[in-house]
């Protein structure tokens, strides 16, 4: 909100205070009124402008969620066996693709050849002390 009052603003008494005093509106109140009027009317004016969309922060319309079922629901995969890099044999070849993740300085690879086929697409795991799900 813009500052409307100056510091040290004081009501100044007007020279003619008798008849006009009943209808007297302090200047600061008038300024406030004008500013409020402007603030409220701006969006209304913008909405009435032809052509353009209103420039208010509107909610982006939600996409409709209509999934189709192909298969029954699978169990969640948890407690996956883990190997250290030096324990891995030649079964995992150098050029095989993995999803690599680092959490809190702990690194782990999820070979994509272990994540394919509907059953394996989500692996629940804990890495760097955080519960995660690696998905394909």
């Amino acid at each position, binding site marked *: 909100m813009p500052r409307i009052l100056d510091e040290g603003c004081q009501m100044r008494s007007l020279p003619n205070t008798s008849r006009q005093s009943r209808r007297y509106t302090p200047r600061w109140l008038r300024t406030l009124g004008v500013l409020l009027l402007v603030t409220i009317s701006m969006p209304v004016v913008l909405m009435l402008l032809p052509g353009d969309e209103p420039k208010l922060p509107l909610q982006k319309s939600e996409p409709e969620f209509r999934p189709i079922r192909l298969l029954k629901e699978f169990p969640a995969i948890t407690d996956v066996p883990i190997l250290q*890099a030096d324990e891995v044999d030649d079964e995992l070849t150098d050029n095989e693709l993995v999803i690599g993740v680092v959490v809190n300085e702990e690194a782990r690879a999820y070979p994509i050849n272990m994540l394919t086929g509907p059953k394996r697409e989500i692996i629940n795991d804990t890495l760097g002390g955080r519960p995660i799900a690696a998905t394909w």
Partner: protein
Amino acid sequence: MVYTTNVDGQILHLAVSGMLWRRSLVMVDKQTGTRWSHLLGKAMKGPLKGTRLQAIPCSMTTWSAWKREHPQTSVINLTKTSKRYTSEFYRRPGSFVFGWVHEGEQAYAAGLDVLLQQPLMNLMTEGAPVLLTFNPASTEANLFSRTIDKQTMTFERISESRMKDEATETVWNSQTGTALEGPLAGRQLKRLVGIMSYTRAWEIFHPENRMITEQVQ
């Protein structure tokens, strides 16, 4: 995509729901039965509807490249369900894109064919300066913010995994976004979330997607 799965103090176990939405995986959590969009990371129906999971930046890369960057890494040990996902798989340009969603709103994607031609791109998306790097050997793509200390950095590729910034000539690892030598040594670019996807799947899921074809500078 990799997500953090604790929501309001509860750890969710996500599973394959067997359903598809916009041809994309719908996940279900076993704790509440809520259905989640895999690509959005958002609860679409059920008790947790509207909740967003926090996505963690991850890299799709080769096992050898990952081991090199992270010698202490572990790896999960399940039987293989496929043999085809090697770096060769992505050598068909045009079928794949590296895509991301800027601040949950605007989707962008760069085709693999474009990345092979321009393995480092300084971009400006929705007013945000981002850096897209690609290593053709490992087919690893990464996305970073180009802002450090409120300054926008511009990068230049030196080699497959090295780049330098124009302002200070610091040398950086273009896969990890870590500064290695020079005035900014030790600094880390903020990683952003992006994924490799089939082109068509990405376009179907993100009808408003904008394809990136060249860098801004």
